[in-house]
């Protein structure tokens, strides 16, 4: 019986398919039940209603977007204010800065007022300097060799760490991404834990090993642990595991060696992540304070980041210029590689 029904249904379907375009009926609906004039009027009223609704919706949407833009502008203004201040204030003359801000630092260091210099009672927040000079920069760059030395220290600490860590991390994360057996996964997990360890934990071992190796108080005490830090490995492995295995299989079938797969497939596909990580590492190590503070007792070897916090009153004028000069390299790198950075960060977060 079922069989018969099935055949019947199939027949119907076939016939229906064949005649689908020819057999159309005129169904009786609300619209067709109206007379011609009533229909016209109905259409008119409907048109008006839809237009009104659209307008209302447009207005509410506009208001909401306006609020959104306002909030976004507010938030980004808050984010940018400190940076702009530092930049613009660096073009003020030394006297202006001192007269504007000395009151701030006086209360901090607890000095009595120094008499002759004019001071405002509350600090004056100015975006635009009264007279624009680049005197601060010239004094900074040509009269104060100390700043330049610290700057050079920062560079010489940061660049080897970033370069070294990227090379080591590329190799290691390729290994973690390709060879996935139990012991390797355990090792990878211990790497993750190591990455999550705050400086408070890793600094003591760093200090001990530096002491044992006799590199304490040299820049190697910071560079070597920096190179083998596992932060980049974690993110890069996550990235490399997203490479479709078909690519690698195809390459293997074509007779590529592991090294060729690594250099010709894995690395180019991870280009964005590598750029992003380079930027992140650069800013992280350009910024470092803890390691030099503990591992380098010789102040002549310390980078500018530590030194900038120790600026005292007489050098107040120069401080803004020094801060600006210090933040130019990361900002330039950011403007150059923003897309890579955003892409790299976003891909690292998605599983």
């Amino acid at each position: 019986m079922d069989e018969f029904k099935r055949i019947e249904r199939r027949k119907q379907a076939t016939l229906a398919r064949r005649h689908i375009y020819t057999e159309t009926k005129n169904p009786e609906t609300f619209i067709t039940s109206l007379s011609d004039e009533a229909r016209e009027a109905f259409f008119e009223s409907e048109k008006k209603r839809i237009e009104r609704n659209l307008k209302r919706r447009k207005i509410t949407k506009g208001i909401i977007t306006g609020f959104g833009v306002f909030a976004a502008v507010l938030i980004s203004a808050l984010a940018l204010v400190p940076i702009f201040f530092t930049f613009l204030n660096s073009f003020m003359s030394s006297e202006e800065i001192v007269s504007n801000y000395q009151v701030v630092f006086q209360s901090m260091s607890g000095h009595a007022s120094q008499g002759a210099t004019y001071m405002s009672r509350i600090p004056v927040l100015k975006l635009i300097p009264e007279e624009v000079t680049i005197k601060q920069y010239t004094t900074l760059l040509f009269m104060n060799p100390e700043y330049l030395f610290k700057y050079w220290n920062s560079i010489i600490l940061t660049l080897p760490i970033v370069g070294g860590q990227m090379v080591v991390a590329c190799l290691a994360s390729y290994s973690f991404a390709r060879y996935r057996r139990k012991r390797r996964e355990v090792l990878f997990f211990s790497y993750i834990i190591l990455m999550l360890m705050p400086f408070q934990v890793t600094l003591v071992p760093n200090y001990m090993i530096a002491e044992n190796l006799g590199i304490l108080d040299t820049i190697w005490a910071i560079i070597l642990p920096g190179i083998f830090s596992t932060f980049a490995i974690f993110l890069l492995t996550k990235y490399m595991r997203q490479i479709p295995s078909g690519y690698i299989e195809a390459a293997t079938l074509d007779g590529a060696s592991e090294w060729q797969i690594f250099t010709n497939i894995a690395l180019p596909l991870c280009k964005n992540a590598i750029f992003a990580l380079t930027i992140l590492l650069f800013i992280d190590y350009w910024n470092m304070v803890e390691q030099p503070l503990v591992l380098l007792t010789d102040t002549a070897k310390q980078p500018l980041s530590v030194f900038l916090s120790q600026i005292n009153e007489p050098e107040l004028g120069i401080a803004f210029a020094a801060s600006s000069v210090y933040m130019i390299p990361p900002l330039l790198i950011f403007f150059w590689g923003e897309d890579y950075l955003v892409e790299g960060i976003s891909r690292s977060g998605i599983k």
Partner: protein
Amino acid sequence: MDNRTNIEHLGEKGEVTGVRPGSEVSHHPEKPQTRNVVVRSEEEREEAIINRPKPKNVTPLASQKLTPKDIPVFEDTPERKAKLELRRKRHIKRRIRDWGIFTGYLTPSFAGVLVFFFLPLLLLLKTSFQKSPTNSDFVGLRNYVRVLTNDAFIDASVNTLTFALISVPLAVVLALFIALLLNTGLPGKSLFRSFLLNPMMVPVASVVLIWQVFFSYNGVINGIAAQISEAAVKIDWLKSSYAQVVIMLLFLWKNLGYNMVLFLAALNSIPHEILESAAMDGAGPVKRFFKIKLHYLSPTIFFVGIMSLINSFKIFREVYLLTGDYPYDNLYMLQHFMNNSFTHLDYSKLSAGAIVMCIVMIIIVGGLFFAESKFDSDVEE
């Protein structure tokens, strides 16, 4: 049902009968290639199409019943043994070679990590049970007791934990909020994004000065407050119980951009169809967020939480640059404790402290991972 199939010649096609075209079976005795042209009426053709025989038993073996006889039995001949042996050897060789290759890639990193992190941690463990690094008398847990009863250590850990507990959820929630805001189709979205990412790139040391200008006793904030109302009380932001608030602001200022980019990416990867169909079914924006978006965002929330937690432990940098070695009481972080212990050269206490922190970190992270895996399995079901 595809009625284009040529039913008359079903049997001839190799892939339908499951017999390889080259094999003996497929060599049919030569059939007359001429098609028998029978003029049939439309009705008949339809009937034929509808009632065409179903392709049964497409694979020849499927209809046959297998008997134990059909399963080949390999005899234990010496040749076969040798062959198996060779195969196993090759397999082992290949595994060793694979292992060797990938271990080779890992070696530089592993050696470095071993020398600079794992071995020192073991050394640390050893030192934490000794009287002092030079005097290797075993003192049991005395160092741990000394650390755990130390007021400065307790204060520092309480401060660090309070800071993390308040600022990490704040960082996650605010970043999610901003990401949702930017995701509503604002004009100039990428511009805002790069504005918000900017603070991440600025070294703390550079903006410390401006934060001091804002938040010190005679600073701008107090000045503005005084101008707005005469009754405003001057607060010394960095040297009162408000100090942690200032540092939290600094932390949020620095980390919101990074978190926001992560959330934006996650929001973009939510399947559009699901959101649209939910909207069609009448789910409002609030319902859509809680029932759909939050569901898809949960792994990202976890990731952002972990990243923020790591960064919250790095906050010492900002505190140190703002306030120096000995800040106000509730800013005294664990790193201050460590740094100041370094100057006292009390290594055994220091290493006991580090081990305690290490264990606490492992517990926290392990708990988070456990929670995530449990949550994830919920999501999949």
